């Protein structure tokens, strides 16, 4: 006991002498918000870090610093691998790069076409980078340009992109959030391949990289642009527009969107707002080439009616429903054809087959899935329900038509 007591002050000293291994004051950290990875001509990695300048982002801070500083700075290094590049960055920065708050990982198209495996492994292995980091591919631009773009609303580009992804998935449904974990899992899934969002810069690309971009009313922006389809870790091509939305239909991830349905020879007849949707998948694995059945159950409202139809008539609603079904069916079929064209199962059909019939998958399908997938027959059934038609009854076009016909 006496020994213990005499040790106590000693150990206290120890406590203070030794304890600073993992301690970092906040002002010793550079908070990395985005990471960009590109390949240079020699085949080395170019890594770009977007580091935030907190004094400029924080609300209502007029204290130290202040004034006109950019919201973020960008560091760029090259190295044979990611770690090397990361550590090299310390030659440029006075602070430790801190990755826990990184929200976006950008691949250049070049590296995406080469292979993303190495980068995915490194990022998912690092304990500091969170698994919720969003993965995107810079389309028609480079990560370093993208990370240098000044965005107007969320001042930090990476933040803006991550938020755009979230909002767009919920409201439009041509892109879906893909974090590093989901990418990893889709690589591992039986027969699965990853699908990664594309992003591009619109507007004046030179202006985009200067702070003046803030000062113009119509600045250059970042914009989501399709989803990249991969095979064996290599980018094969892009799904755009309705094709991309088809992926969300199939995966059952579509929350809400707007679909244009023709009416009486008019292409732009109705605008239908999808409010929720449910997808059920099943597979028939009796034959060598399995058949997959897709049942989609969207619920929708009529948002715009651009043709003279009596919306108070229930049969008319049924009519619209069937036309909506056709549109969605077409979208989905296009998506399937496209991904079969790339021979890349980004839709998770392999996983479905495995779920439905594990034995047959292991014995027959798995080996030559590359041959089977393009041949897959998919039957798409859409059964939509239109619930409401906004706060108006029939469109005034219909009333006018009645007036004309009446006399």
């Amino acid at each position, binding site marked *: 006991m006496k020994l213990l007591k005499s040790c106590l002050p000693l150990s206290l000293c120890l406590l203070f002498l030794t304890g600073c291994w993992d301690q970092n004051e906040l002002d010793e950290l550079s908070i990395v918000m985005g990471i960009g990875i590109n390949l240079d001509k020699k085949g080395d990695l170019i890594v770009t870090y977007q580091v935030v300048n907190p004094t400029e982002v924080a609300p209502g801070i007029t204290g130290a610093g202040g004034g006109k500083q950019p919201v973020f700075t960008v560091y760029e290094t090259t190295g044979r691998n990611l770690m090397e590049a990361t550590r090299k960055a310390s030659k440029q920065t006075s602070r430790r790069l801190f990755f826990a708050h990184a929200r976006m990982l950008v691949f250049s198209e070049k590296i995406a076409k080469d292979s993303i495996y190495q980068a995915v492994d490194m990022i998912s292995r690092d304990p500091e980078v969170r698994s919720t980091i969003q993965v995107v591919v810079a389309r028609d631009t480079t990560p370093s340009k993208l990370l240098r773009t000044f965005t107007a609303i969320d001042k930090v580009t990476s933040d803006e992109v991550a938020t755009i992804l979230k909002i767009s998935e919920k409201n439009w449904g041509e892109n879906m959030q893909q974090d590093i974990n989901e990418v990893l899992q889709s690589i591992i899934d039986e027969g699965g391949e990853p699908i990664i969002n594309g992003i591009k810069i619109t507007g004046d690309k030179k202006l985009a990289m200067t702070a003046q971009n803030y000062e113009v009313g119509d600045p250059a922006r970042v914009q989501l642009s399709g989803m990249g389809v991969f095979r064996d870790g290599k980018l094969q091509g892009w799904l755009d527009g309705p094709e991309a939305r088809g992926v969300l239909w199939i995966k059952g991830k579509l929350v809400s969107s707007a679909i244009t349905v023709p009416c009486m020879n008019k292409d732009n007849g109705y605008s239908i707002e999808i409010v929720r949707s449910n997808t059920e998948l099943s597979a028939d694995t009796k034959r060598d080439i399995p058949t997959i059945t897709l049942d989609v159950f969207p619920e929708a409202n009529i948002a715009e009616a651009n043709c003279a139809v009596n919306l108070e008539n229930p049969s008319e609603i049924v009519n619209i429903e069937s036309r909506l079904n056709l549109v969605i069916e077409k979208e989905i079929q296009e998506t399937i054809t496209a991904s079969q064209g790339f021979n890349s199962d980004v839709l998770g059909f392999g996983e479905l087959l*495995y779920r439905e019939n594990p034995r047959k998958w292991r014995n027959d399908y798995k080996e030559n899935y590359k041959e089977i997938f393009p041949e897959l027959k998919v039957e798409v059934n859409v059964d939509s329900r239109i619930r409401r038609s906004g706060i108006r009854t029939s469109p005034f076009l219909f009333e006018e038509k009645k007036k004309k016909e009446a006399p």
Partner: protein
Amino acid sequence: MKTIKIDIQQYFIIIVLFELGSAILVGLGMDAGRDAWIAILLGMVSGMVLFLGYFYLYKQFPEQSLTQYLQILFGKSIGKLFGFLYLMYFMYLAARVLRDFGSLLLSAVFVQTPIIVVNALMIATIVYVLKLGFEVLVRTGEIIFSLVVLLGITLAVLVLSADLLKYNYLLPVLGQGFLPVLKAAFPVTPTFPFGEMVVFTMLFPYLKTSKKSKALTVGLFAIMLSGLILSVTVAMDIAILGGHVATHVYFPLLAAVAKINLGEFIQRLDALVVFTLIIGGFFKISVLFYVAVKATQDIFGVKEEKKLIGPIGIVLILSSIVIAANYVEHIKEGLSIVPHFIHIPFQVVLPSLFIIVFLLRRKKLKSFASSPSTSTE
């Protein structure tokens, strides 16, 4: 010496905390892929069988702990030898769990801190608590238990409301057939954590005398509960992360919780979970530590247990570092060597041997056991 008495509810709490302590942290039965949760349930059932065996031994020697009745079963010298082996086993277990937690902290939070510091801090805490007595540890356990229950419920609610579970990840059930599950379940899963119940052979005698009849049912119930919790947790990990990721990270629970993000505000809870887990680890190491102290006391005839706590603590710190060169080796040992060559002998083979020897020598021992043999106490 003041005799410690454990209440039946305290006993229940010790078992549950002990079982969950480190097992909830590392992925159990992950060889079975997305069927890991079935493997755990299988392990649980066989663990309950093992528990019956331990309990049978205790019934025969209601007043003595394992190291004490070994000396009755085999005589002083051989009994002490077996006792010593068990002592080594308990110490090894304690060191292993300590290493597990040290590694967890190091890989998740304290990347640059030497593991010896982290482990020493943990042992220092345990030494302090044990110096206050085992009773204090048990009562602290009661508080910890309510905390853990509270946090568990909170986490469950968060996971459910964050809409992270993808049940598809759990399908197909038994996709690879039953064999891989069986392979994953045996022999590893029963031995860890369920077979570790063998340490309770050292603690049974402290049960309150009036409650002994209930001890069997309560014990089995506690094992069942912890088995269910473990199984559900692993199923949750898989449903959140997907079969592959869940089986390929060292700490699946941590990775799963990291995905919680509610309204951009409740997020990044993994570090918080780390420290909840530490509480569980603290408790498990403490129990193993105390059992080691008890065993040492019995074998070497030390009167005061408090004198042993400090030295054994230092031994634990050092051995926790020496047992493996790196974490990969540590996990590898834990998955392939330890279950076969250490857990099974100590959890299955030796106890069955004791039961057989007891049955053979029952008549001779009867006179021995019924007489108030206080020589070892």
